């Protein structure tokens, strides 16, 4: 609440100061200067924007926009996935004049962002995730996401070479398609090294619960998992706890190697700067913004952390070879014959779902070898 009041007051001060300056300037220099196209872009984060994870990855992307002339970036962090985010969007539009808004958290989309799309048809909304559907949703909305599952596959390759117990651990937040794809990719990456490897998953139920994530990591290590990765908003706790227990870790969202330099193998990172610049370039140029934006390693949406000192020669080789294969495009993590861990066939022999396959965005299963349940 206070943030919004501050925002409005700050905006008031800014506007009046600008008005005064403009008045002075026009008095002093009667010839007005042509301004470059200007726009205000709003970013909304569900957590703190320096969390060593999801929000930090977005905020780093947003920060690069500030260097572009004429672009004003407004941000609000710690916005819950409730009606609060609607108020934040309204104030960004009404008070800051934002014409493009990025609500970056999964739960912002329905019903909050959709309500705002209907209320402000002239404002563009782009949501991070895979929710936008042309048949159901308005055209001033859209979604963007990266094929980070490929990164988790590469994590799995390295984990498969490093694990001695042949048991991997995955601390996950909620069983949504993107998280399930990451878990499945991590295991399949490891199984490309040794098909007997299993992966235990623990869902914490929330995007950010430090103590529960630490408990989950401890429980996984107790059960013999010796490489841990995660899909939570802030992997800091998981990385530190796992390394503290002597397990290896693969990172997620951002580079966490400074937290555990010896135990960090590699990590799947976002590169949002590229995506946001693309949108803003379109906005400035006046071309319509794409509604459906996806990209992977080859497009520069996703990148890998440098390999850590614990990765052996064989692991390095297969990592480089797989990465090179992925950069060519068309690489399929989910390919038949493949069963879910409940025994259902998810891909028949010869069937392959490359990263661009839209079916992957509605994934509701864990593959054979993953110990865990989606509900």
């Amino acid at each position: 609440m206070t943030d919004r009041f501050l925002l409005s007051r700050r905006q008031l001060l800014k506007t009046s100061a600008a008005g005064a300056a403009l008045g002075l300037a026009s008095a002093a220099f009667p010839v007005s200067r042509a301004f470059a196209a200007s726009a205000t872009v709003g970013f909304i984060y569900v957590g703190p924007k320096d969390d060593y994870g999801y929000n930090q990855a977005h905020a780093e992307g947003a920060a690069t926009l500030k260097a572009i002339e004429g672009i004003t970036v407004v941000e609000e962090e710690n916005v819950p996935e409730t009606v609060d985010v609607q108020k934040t969007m309204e104030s960004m539009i009404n008070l800051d004049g934002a014409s493009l808004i990025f609500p970056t958290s999964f739960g912002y989309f329905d019903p909050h962002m959709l309500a705002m799309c209907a209320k402000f048809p002239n404002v563009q909304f782009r949501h991070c995730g895979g929710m936008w559907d042309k048949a159901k949703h308005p055209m001033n909305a859209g979604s963007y996401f990266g094929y980070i599952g490929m990164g988790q596959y590469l994590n799995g390759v390295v984990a498969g070479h490093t694990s001695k117990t042949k048991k991997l651990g995955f601390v996950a937040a909620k069983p949504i398609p993107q998280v399930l794809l990451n878990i499945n990719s991590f295991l399949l990456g490891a199984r490309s090294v040794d098909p007997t490897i299993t992966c235990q998953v623990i869902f914490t139920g929330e995007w950010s619960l430090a103590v529960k994530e630490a408990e989950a990591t401890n429980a996984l290590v107790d059960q013999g998992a010796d490489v841990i990765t995660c899909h939570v908003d802030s992997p800091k706790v998981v990385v530190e706890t796992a390394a503290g227990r002597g397990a290896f870790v693969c990172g997620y969202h951002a580079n966490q190697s400074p937290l555990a330099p010896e135990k960090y193998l590699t990590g799947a990172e976002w590169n949002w700067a590229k995506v946001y610049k693309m949108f803003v370039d379109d906005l400035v140029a006046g071309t319509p913004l794409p509604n459906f934006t996806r990209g992977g390693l080859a497009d520069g949406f996703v990148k890998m952390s440098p390999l850590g000192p614990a990765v052996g020669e064989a692991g390095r080789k297969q990592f480089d070879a797989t990465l090179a294969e992925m950069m060519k495009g068309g690489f399929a993590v989910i390919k038949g014959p493949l069963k879910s861990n409940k025994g259902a066939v998810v891909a028949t022999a010869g069937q392959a779902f490359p990263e661009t396959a839209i079916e992957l965005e509605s994934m509701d299963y864990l593959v054979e070898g993953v110990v865990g349940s989606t509900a």
Partner: protein
Amino acid sequence: MDATEIGLWGVPLAILGGAIRVSTPFIFVSLGEAITERSGRINLGLEGTLVFGAMTAYAVAVMTNSPWLGLLAAAFAGLFFGLFHGWICKFRGVNDIAIGIALMLFGSGLAFFFGKPFIKPKAPNLPAIPFGGWSDIPQVQAALDVNVLFLIGAVLSVILWWAFRNTRAGLIVRVVGDSSDAARAMGLNPDTVRLLATGVGGALAGIGGAYLSLYYPGSWTERISSGQGLMAVALVIFARWNPLGCFAAALLFGGAGALGPALQSVGVTQGYYLFYAAPYILTLIIMIVTSSPTRTLAGAPGELSITK
């Protein structure tokens, strides 16, 4: 079965380990709140104090490279917050619950503000005492790595329990909490006693925060507490204002909280949301079983604004 696989034994072990690891902040905050409430005030701001304590401890530990100085700083920060609460509540017509809520938001907000530059650096952790040396199973050793603060909390709860019955200071706190008029008749100043009791309560909550950021989970993030301070305040009522009860309730909460992840790790993967609700379901059951329609809440200080 080799040494790295302990199978179903992981569940009781995780509950034990979880009880020891997770309970410490609950112990300190609830003991602090027990002192404050025994003196007749409610300080709901301890959630904010906990978060601010966590931030202060981490920041000072980063700057001085000493976790002990961080702990001390957190205790002082908590003391300051407690005294502030006690001082404001001295004025006529001030509602302690409302001030508590204000201080909760203020403490968290201030901690976020000052804590920004300390999210990235790494602080030295408080040491743990390995009680699991007798076992050669690494899981048992890990579960029995007990932090000194947990032991201090355990000893403190016994001391407080004894002190409330047998020491002059303990009796003064209780009489002020039960009847301001009686306390005044004895020549005591209720405001001063409550000021000190709230200050001590805040200091203990600050120490609880230091445990969060300097031992388990052991890093400073804005989501570090996720409501543990509020939960601990509720535990005091659950424990009937008895320090030993606070300790037991904190252990129960810590252990029950470890149940969800532990069950998933051994393959019981269905219905984990239900297991995560275990601490709350347990609380409800105990509350229902121990409540009685024929008598009022046993042990409630008479001057508490919720019981008056």
